[in-house]
């Protein structure tokens, strides 16, 4: 099993004729993802590398049965792309685009909730259920579909997730599903939305949470783990050395008003029984120990 996406997920790529969209549509198909349609306004009726292109998402849903979308359009148009997908009845919307204004996301998350859709991102690497479905930009071959045990991953960053997954895969620990939730202050799905899904997934043996400085999503995650989860959870928090008041790349990664520090988050994780990796090089070994493999 996996969460959110599987081998039956039918994907529409919004912005398929752009450089990014085109490249990653091909990569996703090569991984085995069912990419059934693309959307580029004005290019409806054409084909892009064998995939039918439509003017709007609703048509892609009607004609090709798309139930998930991935967004590669520029930041100034990305919010509209999210809303269009939600309106068309898409169940899972994955927004890769970075640089979307925060107040646009304030509106988008409400609209998406009203339409009962699930938004992942923006500013994220996407989601992958190894061996079944990749809707994102991550390097598929770093991930492992079968192993001694399976963990779920939830992360606020991209390349740090690949680093963590590599460590896990090398130790023979597979991944049930990995979700990059994005580094912006407001994102569609947060740790507490996804942890219960992993708790309910029979094939997930434990969860690895990769957080970073800023906000208090990690603290909320820790409390949810303590209150509601039976499966073991491990965590790493990036940004121990980040100075207050400076935005560390991600719009959300900022320590403001003395809140959102890594030290604070690590402490709450520990208090809630979550195993914390001391350094980014110890993510794999921390999970192995948590799953009693080491």
């Amino acid at each position, binding site marked *: 099993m996996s969460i959110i996406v599987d081998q039956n997920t039918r994907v529409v790529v919004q912005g398929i004729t752009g450089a990014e969209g085109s*490249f990653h549509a091909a*990569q996703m198909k090569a991984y085995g993802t069912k990419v059934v349609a693309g959307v580029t306004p004005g290019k409806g009726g054409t084909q892009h590398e064998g995939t039918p292109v439509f003017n709007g998402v609703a048509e892609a849903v009607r004609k090709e049965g798309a139930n998930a979308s991935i967004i590669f359009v520029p*930041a*100034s148009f990305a919010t509209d792309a999210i809303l269009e997908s939600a309106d068309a009845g898409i169940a899972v919307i994955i927004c890769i685009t970075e*640089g*979307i*204004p*925060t*107040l*646009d*996301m*304030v*509106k988008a*998350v*409400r609209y998406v909730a009203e339409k009962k859709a699930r938004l992942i991102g923006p500013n994220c*690497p996407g989601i992958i259920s190894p061996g079944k479905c990749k809707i994102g*930009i*991550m*390097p598929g071959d*770093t991930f492992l579909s079968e192993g001694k045990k399976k963990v779920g991953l939830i*992360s*606020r*960053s*991209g*390349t*740090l*997730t*690949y*680093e963590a997954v*590599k460590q896990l895969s090398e130790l023979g620990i597979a991944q049930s599903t990995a979700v990059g939730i994005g*580094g912006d*202050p*407001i994102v569609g799905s947060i740790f507490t939305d996804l942890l219960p899904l992993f708790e309910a997934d029979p094939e997930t043996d434990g969860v690895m949470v990769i957080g*970073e*400085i800023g*906000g*208090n*999503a990690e603290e*909320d995650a820790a409390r949810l783990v303590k209150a509601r989860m039976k499966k073991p959870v491990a965590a*790493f928090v*990036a*940004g*121990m*050395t*980040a*100075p207050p*008041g*400076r935005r*560390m*790349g*991600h*719009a*959300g*990664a900022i320590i403001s*008003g*003395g809140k959102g520090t890594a030290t604070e988050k690590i402490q709450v994780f520990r208090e809630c029984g979550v195993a914390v990796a001391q*350094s*980014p*090089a*110890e993510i794999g070994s921390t999970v192995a120990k948590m799953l009693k493999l080491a």
Partner: protein
Amino acid sequence: MKIHEYQAKEILARYGVKVPKGQVAFTPREARLIAEIIGKKVVVKAQIHAGGRGKGGGIRTADNPNDAEKVAHEIIGMNLVTHQTGPEGRKVRLVLVEEASTVARELYLGVVVDRNTAQPVLIASAEGGMEIEEVARKSPEKILREGINPLTGLLSFQLRRLTAALGITKEQTKAFSALISGLVNCFVKEDCTLAEINPLIVTPEGDVVALDAKLNLDDNALFRHLEQAKLRDVNEEDFLEVEASQHNLNYIRLDGNVGCMVNGAGLAMATMDIIKYCGGEPANFLDVAGAANPDTVGNGFRIILKDPKVKAILVNIFGGIVRCDRVASGIVQATRELQKEGKIRVPLVVRLDGTNAKEAGQILRDSGLNIIEIQGLKAAAEKVVSLIK
């Protein structure tokens, strides 16, 4: 993006927020002229992108234009040290000269985006003038919060609840409500990430005035506020960070001596962390993102090397979509160029992992350059730290 107090007040005034009469001055002479126009006691306020200016001597009153010129002369050019500037302080280049106000009451008002409820929230407190974080820590019950639903805006009953809780009198209610509406409108229309009035004062005459104001603007929304670009004051930023931003590099200077170049913000922070964990101190944050080509790598190296504290560099790239062999070629080309310019003065440790990492290693070895190639994140961090000790 941070902007100056005088800029924030100009913007807020457009939204109907009452601010003291005043203007910015770049010279003592200008300060005198502004004081003459105002025609009464003025306050001369240093304009820097940091708080705590009063305690550091950056805010002073002047009874007449002569005084204003004298005070401005002392403030402009001074090195202002506050709890937010760090011990090195900040050079003052301009002052805001505005009419002095008489204060009957001081309040706090602010708007930020609340991540938990995914909407803006208005924060108010009867304890104005102080650091709001301090009030929140010592007496959290004194902080009032009203969520702003993006579909409805701030509602009348919320305003009534606030005015009652803050003890606003019936006579002041209209002015107070107008000011709050102006602040919230400004936050939304200008795409702010923070809009703060602290203190908001009530004068003995019952006027409600923004005595100090701070606006932070959302960098991501600049594309639809082209006029905001001219509000940027690069003099308030680190010169290396300004240069990096011109090359579309995400660089932040820190205090240590291990320079680092990484792809991805999370991995860049984690790389800084592991350098510290291994006993070193990171000199910077640098995310080259997905564009790890020869140009980006070269520009990144140049900026890192301009920091005289840097004694070694660690490159940590995890190739996903970015192929390591291309990054390696970029590193080799950039290193050769910098060598010709005589600019490579510190050892270079490179860790490449992920897509095409093997080919990348071969490229580095074949180059004949003095590049220390290490596998594994921890080993690489340990190596670069050992080179400094």
